[in-house]
């Protein structure tokens, strides 16, 4: 069943749609959440909350693509939970995105830049990449996938994936410098 049919079912308030979403994207969502939280119970809870959010938000929303919509919900819920856990335990858990922060650590950010503008620039940067590098970048820094998982997913060796990530980070830095985002 394609996503538009799922959305039609949701608009019709057919709760079987959630079962179909779970069958189709459940593993993806669970892995995304688990990559961030590293806790089976918490990840399962976030995925279930995602289904609830999907039920509550469609309608009125009619997202296209659906997968990005639900992945964003799962990611946001997982990050929120991670922040709660971190506050409670007072131990910061490292996410892959910190590698990016580290790459840009010695730079000064342009003061007036807001997140939306930065996101637009990141999108433009991603458009400049070849598909494989872009997917690897997203899998690592958005989906927080482990390197071996990415290597499996893109049929490359782990060292190749590392090299591609390293080059992409360098490109990103150069791109942001050219764009005046970092000084």
């Amino acid at each position, binding site marked *: 069943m394609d996503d538009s049919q799922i959305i039609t079912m949701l608009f019709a308030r057919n709760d079987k749609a959630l079962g179909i979403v779970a069958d189709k994207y459940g593993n*993806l969502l669970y892995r995304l959440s688990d990559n961030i939280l590293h806790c089976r119970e918490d990840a399962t809870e976030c995925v279930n909350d995602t289904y609830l959010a999907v039920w509550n938000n469609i309608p009125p929303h009619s*997202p296209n*693509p659906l*997968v*990005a*919509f639900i*992945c*964003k919900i799962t*990611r*946001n819920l997982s*990050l929120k939970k991670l922040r709660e856990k971190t506050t409670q335990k007072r131990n910061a858990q490292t996410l892959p*995105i*910190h*590698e*990016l*922060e*580290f*790459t*840009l*650590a010695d*730079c000064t*950010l342009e003061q007036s*830049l*807001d*997140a*939306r503008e*930065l*996101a637009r620039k*990141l*999108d433009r940067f*991603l458009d400049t990449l070849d*598909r*494989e590098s*872009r*997917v690897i970048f*997203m*899998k690592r*820094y*958005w*989906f927080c996938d*482990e*390197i*071996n998982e990415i290597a499996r*997913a*893109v*049929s490359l060796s*782990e*060292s190749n994936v*590392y090299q591609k*990530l*390293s080059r992409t*980070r*360098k490109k990103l830095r150069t791109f942001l410098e050219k764009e005046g985002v970092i000084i």
Partner: protein
Amino acid sequence: MKNLLDTAFCMLDDRHIEEAATYTPQTKTISFKKILPIAVCFVLVVVSAFAVKDYFSPVVTTVSPTITTNGNYITTADTNTTVAGVVEGSSTVACAPEITPTTTPTTAPATTSSGTVEISLYCTTPMIDYTGWESMPFQSFYHCIDIGGAYYYADYVNNSSASHTDEPLEKEKLGALLYKFNRSDYRFEINGSGDFTVEIYEIIGYSKEEAVAVGRKDGLMKGYYPYYRIINNQERELLNTLNECQTLSDFIDFANITADYTPENFCTSFWVYYKEEGKEDVTYSIAIDSMEKLAILLLENRDVKAECRTGNTGEKLTFNAYLKGFSCEIYLCNDGYLYLNKDGLTRAFCIGIESYEKFFNSFKLSSVVWTPENPITVG
């Protein structure tokens, strides 16, 4: 920066997320139509090459080698190069120790007193770069002794001994033993002097003040002493990656690569000792709990000493690695394994070293000070 980046990532375009979520690698198929012209060109080139090869002499790159005073060695580092130059009073020509000959060197005329002699000698790129290492007079032969955790070294030539802290033997006694000790042997025991055994370690390299011990010449195993295994391809690949690290970012990448390794043995942290100029010994230490910190230290301090300690007991291992410059990010414990820690936790990385020679070759040392008169002895 962190929050902004996090937030911006949450706002990335849906199509990028969808693409990554649904990505399936394309099957790479080789089309016969595409490969045909290439194959035809290849065949033509090969046939042409065979057809014309007799009409041309092989191209030989000739460089002027640095030939040492007695003319016995070529120290050029050129790869696969036919070298030519003036040989004075020499009968044979060989590669310097850091260069591996891949062909048998041609013998130059024994009667040549001077003149240009072309020598067919192909040498591989040297693995060892001695840059930055002190010259080592041949006679100044050091041995390192480990006695129950204490760490000694001695200079045979000057008939003196020196030691580090907590020595269980008096210096004088140790010096006398060392003086009498036949240096062609590498192990002896002291009976009746205590319940400890003295182990002699061969020294394969040293810095200005202290020797570096890596293990026993005889390769015997005792306690936590050296043992070896063959490095596997994956480790070799990783070692190559490590050697290619040029920047801090590269180094961090490498640390990430190694993060998932869980070797049987590991060090829980690195203690990096700084030597302050003008002071004799270690002045202070800092526990390195992450590769990032270690990498930064390596970048900022070109002369740091890493010492590996076991995690459970804090027992001192006798290997001390001098990290000379960024080209030497290799830490070897005295069990013959290379360790790189990440996060100061159990995740570490190890590379087994097949032999001392291999280990030595795997080091990128620094400053060519080698001469035929004063070769650096490497075991």
